[in-house]
């Protein structure tokens, strides 16, 4: 091997090697992160990726999923060209068509359905990834449908609406100044490296860390001053008990409560019932440890809490648990104060938490009709309805099957994977009721066997991106041409708007024109953002000064922080409590037949829902769908490490490998989701939903496990 061959093999950039490094961003996970990527390209192909030094969030590093970007891009299952269904639904029989045919036929059919059945009969849904949401929302409204929905129906939205319910806006913790970090289900040291840094920062300046989790984790082991290991679904009871102790021990801020809090007396009466002894029986945590957690919190105020997007809300009592957790910051005077929880202003996706005015929100809502029909899930989940502007997709299966509140005729599904929903395998029954299904994705997923049109879209490396990080903004160019005949999802929607001739000039103007519109008031251009080596600071900070809401009132019905939710009271629903009361979160299955607790979707580092399972490098780290279970439960069933086992419920069964670990408590079994051959969501009843938020109770349902073949 000569010198040049060696340099090429080592992938060194240079004129001699023909390797260039281009900047892009990773959008495999959620827009709150979107790390910077240095993409090594040779002869028009990506040959390697790494993190961009100095970039917000990742500063040169990549997580295991981000490091897999090259295979995510070039993996085998990529959809290559538009296809039209030729056989019966589910047969997988398709023929290749041109984009021209696809646009002509889809737009004609959508317009016909609107004419015959009304715009609301068309559902516009998106799963992963999330960057395209502004365009999907926009086209749904321009078309006239209220049924815009996203996978946020099971992601961070329940957490966010709990914050909105109490404070009027979503808060984030002021980690730089907080005295104590309460991590509920937080395993940041394992799966969120950007936050692991924050934990180290809190530690180094003498702050305290309390971790509440059902499992022992690197975070609980390395960072926790107090670690409470509790049974799944009991966080709410624990939070009420800590509230009780904070009151009794005099850690609360009475002046603050008098001035800014609504419903304290009723809250106090509620929490009084949650004594350490009683809550110890519910949660499994020792009474002394609960007292210690309350002391550590009370003596190190202000406190902030961190709850990952899904860990708490994935229980059918999760919404109230979230409110009980937030209430602790309320009664200790920790909202809208330095070192506490700060109210945020932006719900943006492209320009999430951007800190300066963009036109993204105007774009999202600019064509929203004044009168819209009821959304899917609107009546069933009134809190969801009151605090979000989208349908509750967890109710989609029922709504289509029961034609409630109306018949549905078409589904435009961008990156939808029904495996995220409970009883996923029942979706084909609902698909049969639809006249038109259009599915776009990077790779083939289950819905692609049922869709009438299957269309290929591209990854973040193959398109222009615009992205905000705090007060920094960036744009990237495509680092390689879109593969095969794929297009970017937003361009697809823009072209669809043109073909249907919707009354929407911004959508018709196209993707890049829309990006320019977003930033049209800012002193930078798309080109300048693309040319800069790193995201550029854009200083027009619009966030309100600290204490603004204390002075001017919170944007809630009472103008105060609502321990007693007037929004919930106004629903008039007897089954919903304005106070954050606790209730058992199991399903109704027989405890003797199903003595184990199934926690579906507990995270693994190399997975991101279903999206990394077919990426060989990521998959190689845990090649088989595997259940984590405790030695005691394994021994009782004659199960050994690596055995093939069956997890079963009254609803279904999956076959997986067993991994025995003492990380969880006896009785709890943990199974990651999204596997085609072992879809854990098929084991959970479709009605196992939180009555407030509509979120699925993935993390707590009854099951049993047996050795395969017995």
């Amino acid at each position: 091997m000569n010198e040049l061959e060696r340099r090429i093999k080592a992938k060194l950039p240079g004129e001699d090697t023909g390797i260039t490094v281009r900047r892009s961003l990773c959008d495999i996970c959620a827009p709150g992160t979107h790390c910077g990527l240095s993409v090594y390209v040779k002869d028009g192909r990506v040959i390697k990726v790494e993190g961009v030094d100095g970039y917000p969030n990742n500063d040169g590093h990549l997580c295991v999923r981000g490091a897999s970007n090259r295979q995510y891009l070039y993996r085998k299952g990529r959809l290559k060209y538009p296809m039209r269904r030729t056989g019966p639904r589910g047969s997988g029989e398709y023929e290749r068509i041109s984009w021209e045919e696809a646009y002509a036929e889809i737009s004609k059919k959508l317009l016909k359905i609107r004419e015959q059945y009304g715009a609301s009969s068309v559902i516009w849904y998106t799963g992963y990834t999330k960057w395209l949401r502004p365009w999907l929302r926009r086209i749904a409204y321009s078309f006239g449908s209220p049924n815009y929905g996203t996978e946020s129906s099971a992601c961070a939205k329940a957490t966010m609406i709990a914050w909105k319910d109490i404070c009027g806006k979503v808060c984030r913790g002021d980690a730089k100044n907080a005295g104590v970090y309460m991590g509920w289900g937080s395993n940041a040291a394992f799966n969120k490296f950007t936050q692991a840094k924050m934990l180290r920062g809190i530690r180094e300046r003498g702050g305290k860390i309390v971790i509440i989790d059902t499992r022992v984790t690197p975070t609980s082991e390395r960072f926790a001053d107090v670690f409470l290991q509790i049974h799944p679904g009991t966080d709410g009871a624990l939070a009420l008990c800590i509230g009780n102790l904070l009151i009794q021990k005099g850690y609360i801020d009475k002046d603050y409560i008098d001035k800014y809090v609504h419903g304290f007396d009723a809250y106090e009466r509620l929490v009084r019932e949650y004594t350490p002894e009683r809550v110890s029986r519910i949660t499994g945590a020792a009474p002394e440890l609960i007292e210690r957690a309350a002391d550590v919190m009370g003596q190190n105020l202000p406190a902030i809490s961190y709850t990952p997007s899904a860990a708490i809300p994935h229980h059918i009592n999760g919404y109230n648990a979230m409110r009980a957790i937030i209430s602790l910051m309320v009664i200790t005077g920790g909202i809208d104060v330095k070192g506490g929880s700060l109210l945020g202003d932006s719900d943006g996706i492209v320009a999430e938490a951007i800190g300066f005015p963009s036109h993204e929100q105007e774009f999202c809502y600019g064509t929203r009709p004044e009168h819209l029909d009821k959304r899917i899930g609107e009546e069933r989940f009134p809190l969801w309805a009151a605090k979000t502007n989208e349908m509750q997709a967890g109710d989609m299966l029922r709504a289509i099957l029961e034609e409630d509140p109306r018949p549905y005729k078409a589904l435009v599904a961008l990156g939808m994977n029904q495996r995220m929903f409970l009883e996923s395998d029942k979706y084909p029954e609902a698909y049969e009721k639809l006249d038109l299904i259009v599915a776009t994705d990077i790779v083939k997923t289950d819905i692609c066997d049922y869709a009438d049109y299957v269309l290929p879209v591209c990854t973040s490396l193959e398109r222009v991106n615009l992205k905000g990080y705090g007060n920094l903004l960036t744009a990237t160019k495509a680092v390689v041409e879109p593969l095969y005949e794929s297009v970017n999802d937003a361009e697809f929607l823009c072209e669809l708007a043109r073909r249907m001739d919707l009354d929407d000039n911004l959508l018709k103007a196209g993707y890049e024109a829309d990006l320019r519109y977003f930033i049209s008031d800012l002193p930078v251009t798309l080109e300048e953002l693309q040319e800069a080596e790193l995201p550029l600071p854009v200083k027009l900070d619009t966030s309100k000064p600290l204490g603004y809401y204390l002075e001017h009132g919170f944007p809630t019905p009472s103008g105060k922080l609502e321990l007693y939710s007037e929004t919930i009271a106004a629903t008039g629903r007897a089954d919903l409590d304005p106070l954050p009361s606790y209730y058992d979160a199991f399903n109704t299955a027989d405890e003797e037949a199903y003595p184990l607790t199934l926690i579906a979707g507990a995270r693994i580092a190399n997975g991101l829902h279903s999206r990394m399972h077919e990426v060989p490098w990521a998959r190689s780290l845990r090649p088989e769908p595997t259940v984590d279970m405790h030695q005691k439960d394994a021994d009782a069933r004659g199960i050994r490490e690596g055995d093939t086992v069956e997890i079963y419920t009254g609803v279904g069964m999956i076959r997986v490998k067993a991994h025995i670990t003492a990380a969880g408590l006896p009785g709890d079994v943990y199974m990651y989701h999204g596997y085609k051959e072992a879809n854990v969501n098929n084991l959970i009843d479709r009605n196992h939903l939180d009555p407030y938020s509509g979120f699925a109770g993935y993390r707590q349902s009854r099951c049993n496990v047996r050795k395969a073949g017995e």
Partner: protein
Amino acid sequence: MKYIFDLNTENCVGCGACSVACMDQNDTDTERGEKPFRVVSTLEQGYRGETRWSYISVACMHCEDAPCIKACPCGCLFKDEETNFTIYDNTNCIGCHSCAMACPFGAPRFNEEGKMVKCDGCNDRVKAGLKPACVKACPFDALKMYSEDEYKQAHPARGIHDIVQQLLRQE
């Protein structure tokens, strides 16, 4: 300048980012059964009635007095004078696996032709002023590469390099 790889076991969580970065750098074809040069594992052990977890990331340790170099009958393995990494030219490899038998860390692997391949510390990248792929990726600041001087100054706490050197001396 001589370089040293070190893993801070207090920070490693066994996430696998280093391993995938290694696969990306070296075009590891896992679907054809190839294994990465760097592997991660989680060890869970009972200790006095408690459970303890340790997380490690292991590849070629680039030993000072490397047993694989001595074991190879064909002179395929040698030290890079500049970086001190244990590198190789497998043109003359006869696939005898002597290096693999001698290596305490399981670093040598064998390709489809039966010839030895292994982690070369991203030797050419390091010589070009870049970090090894695994070190560059590590999101938890666990895996590092130090120059000898930096290493002496940093005295990395709970580092794996020192432990390994002690073990090697005992052998």
